[in-house]
């Protein structure tokens, strides 16, 4: 085995650096007029440019997914859901809710009953997702954190008050203080259904920041929802929040709640079932992760393209410097030594490119919201100049995206990207390395003949 010692590496660095950067510019004794243009910086630039979008996509998609997940968990599904029979009496239910809220690891527990209705105003009508919330929701810090209000309150104080999602209010053309009609279906007798009209005053208009989630929210008090909704189609449950919904403690807590259920004598009773948020929103998160995989794949291809560019830059370098390599070989520099120069050079290029690209990529990701709103403002400014009647542009359509991207810098990603970048650079540098090792010093004998 050929051993690589630090002492043997030093001359390689001396040679490699000079090859990569050309001769020094400053030389007081003999000013140099011509400095060879080095392909090195071009290759570094190529790699860093391909790394930057990778970071942006990683951090933005991750931030988006995290932000959307948080909003689902905190404002809608909770971390655990205990489905209840619709017919459970108020006292039993309240006791169960209190018992669960008292369990270790539970942050809050709140009863909710959901169903479908038709909301109507003088301006129009649209389907509505009725959410009957218990007032204990106001003790839920997560809910309060993610619900923003456009006006009014976030929880209806009276039986005949409703809080609407932003886009439902827009569709109905109503504001705080206006009245809306909610039409629900109730069983009459012998399987017949009767529409039931209820009038609500709009007490508030809210948004979770993610339109898909809150577009049709029609929030009423749970007592009102229990009266209005059809027991056969409505869904009653206790939404449970834990301290850490992403940790392993969630399953332990789930079994704690199951124990609590059997203590309370509900074990095996029809209508009770406990699910975690992962079960409830399984398909949503599956689609998130597949979207992310596709994006990462595309970016990985971009990195491979950059690496191939690096390999071809170095290979061109080897071809252009055949004679110099042959000279080295003629005085006894081994093919392993010349190969190492290109291997080290490629790895060094990759390392610099990855570090520079990472710095820029992380910086842009960090300020992505400011950058996007700057670009948006610039586009709107120009388009207003050109066409004063044009609609303002929104870069991130809130129908599909969060209006503000929550970015959290994840060190694991950075380490993986830089590590893979350097490894791939070193790997593709094998091509010029092998090529350089095939250059024979015999070429010098008949040079120019």
């Amino acid at each position, binding site marked *: 085995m050929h051993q690589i010692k630090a002492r043997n590496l030093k001359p390689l660095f001396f040679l490699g650096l000079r090859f990569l950067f050309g001769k020094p510019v400053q030389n007081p004794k003999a000013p140099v007029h011509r400095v*060879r243009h080095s392909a090195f910086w071009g290759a570094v630039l190529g790699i860093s440019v391909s790394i930057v979008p990778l970071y942006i996509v990683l951090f933005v998609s991750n931030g988006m997914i995290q932000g959307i997940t948080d909003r689902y968990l905190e404002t809608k599904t909770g971390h655990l859901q205990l489905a209840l029979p619709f017919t459970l009496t108020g006292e039993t239910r309240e006791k169960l809710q209190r018992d669960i809220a008292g369990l270790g690891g539970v942050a809050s527990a709140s009863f909710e009953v959901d169903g479908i209705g038709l909301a109507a105003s003088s301006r129009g009508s649209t389907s509505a997702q009725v959410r009957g919330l218990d007032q204990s929701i106001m003790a839920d810090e997560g809910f309060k954190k993610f619900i923003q209000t456009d006006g009014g309150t976030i929880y209806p104080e009276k039986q005949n008050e409703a809080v609407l999602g932003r886009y439902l209010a827009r569709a109905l053309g109503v504001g705080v203080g206006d009245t809306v009609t909610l039409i629900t279906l109730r069983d009459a007798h012998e399987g017949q259904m009767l529409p039931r009209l209820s009038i609500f005053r709009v007490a508030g208009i809210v948004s979770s920041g993610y339109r898909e989630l809150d577009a049709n929210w029609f929030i009423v008090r749970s007592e009102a929802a229990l009266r209005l909704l059809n027991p056969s189609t409505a869904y009653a449950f206790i939404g449970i929040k834990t301290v850490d919904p992403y940790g392993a403690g969630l399953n332990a807590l789930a079994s704690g709640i199951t124990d609590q259920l059997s203590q309370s004598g509900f074990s095996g009773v029809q209508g009770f079932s406990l699910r975690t948020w992962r079960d409830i929103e399984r398909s949503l998160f599956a689609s998130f992760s597949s979207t992310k995989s596709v994006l990462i794949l595309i970016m990985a291809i971009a990195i491979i393209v950059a690496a191939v560019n690096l390999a071809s830059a170095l290979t061109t370098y080897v071809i252009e410097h055949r004679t110099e390599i042959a000279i080295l070989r003629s005085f006894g520099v081994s093919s392993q030594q010349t190969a190492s120069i290109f291997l080290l050079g490629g790895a060094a290029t990759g390392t610099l490119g990855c570090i520079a690209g990472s710095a820029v990529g992380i910086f842009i990701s960090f300020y992505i919201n400011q950058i996007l709103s700057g670009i948006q403002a610039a586009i709107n400014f120009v388009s207003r100049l050109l066409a004063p009647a044009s609609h303002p542009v929104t870069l991130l359509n809130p129908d599909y995206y969060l209006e503000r991207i929550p970015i959290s810098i994840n060190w694991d990603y950075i380490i993986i990207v830089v590590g893979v970048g350097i490894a791939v650079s070193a790997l593709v540098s094998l091509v010029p390395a092998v090529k350089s090792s095939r250059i024979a*010093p*015999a070429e*010098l004998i008949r040079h120019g003949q």
Partner: protein
Amino acid sequence: MNEPIIECRDLIKTFSSGAEVLHILDHADFSLEKGKICTILGPSGSGKSTFLAILGSLERFDSGSVRVDGYELQTLQEKSLSVFRRKVVGFVFQFHFLLGDFSALENVALPGYMAGLPRADAWKRATQLLDLVGLRNRAHHYPSQLSGGERQRVAIARALINEPPIVLADEPTGNLDAASSEELRSLLQRLPEAAKTTLVLVTHDSELATIGDTSFLLKGGISNASDKGS
């Protein structure tokens, strides 16, 4: 009689391009004593450069044996050939082949540094060699700033950095004017004494050929043309 430092027996070298086979060396024998200057003459295309390249292990041969300073070249693998090149021979070509990105001093020091000499030692020895070839004041010039004769003298200094027992020079004055050739000639003549080495010199230059202790003619085989030595 001294043990010869170079000894070739039954050396065969052919080049084949397509169906045509070119016999450059046909059962050639050759031997050379240590510390001498040996000139190799012959018409163009007779294989002088090829023969020199074989002695320096830059070129392989078909059969026969070549022993240079104890190394049996026909038995060596590529890896050992690198060792042979850095320890045993110094090459001077018709073209200077200096590295353009390195100063004269660095060009001279580089083979020593690459061969494992500590940096300070390599640079010190390179300075002494530039002194020997009379270019100490040009140490920090780059090849593009030197004249043809100066470049060739730097190349000679470079060939000596690892203190090789043999220097192989292939028409070192081929590209030079008369004055530079003259300077180079006196330098080469001093070489065996000054650097304790053996010089094998291929040349067309009849003036330069006069410095040889022995002289060989290459034409199919190798014949001893003159012998001023022993």
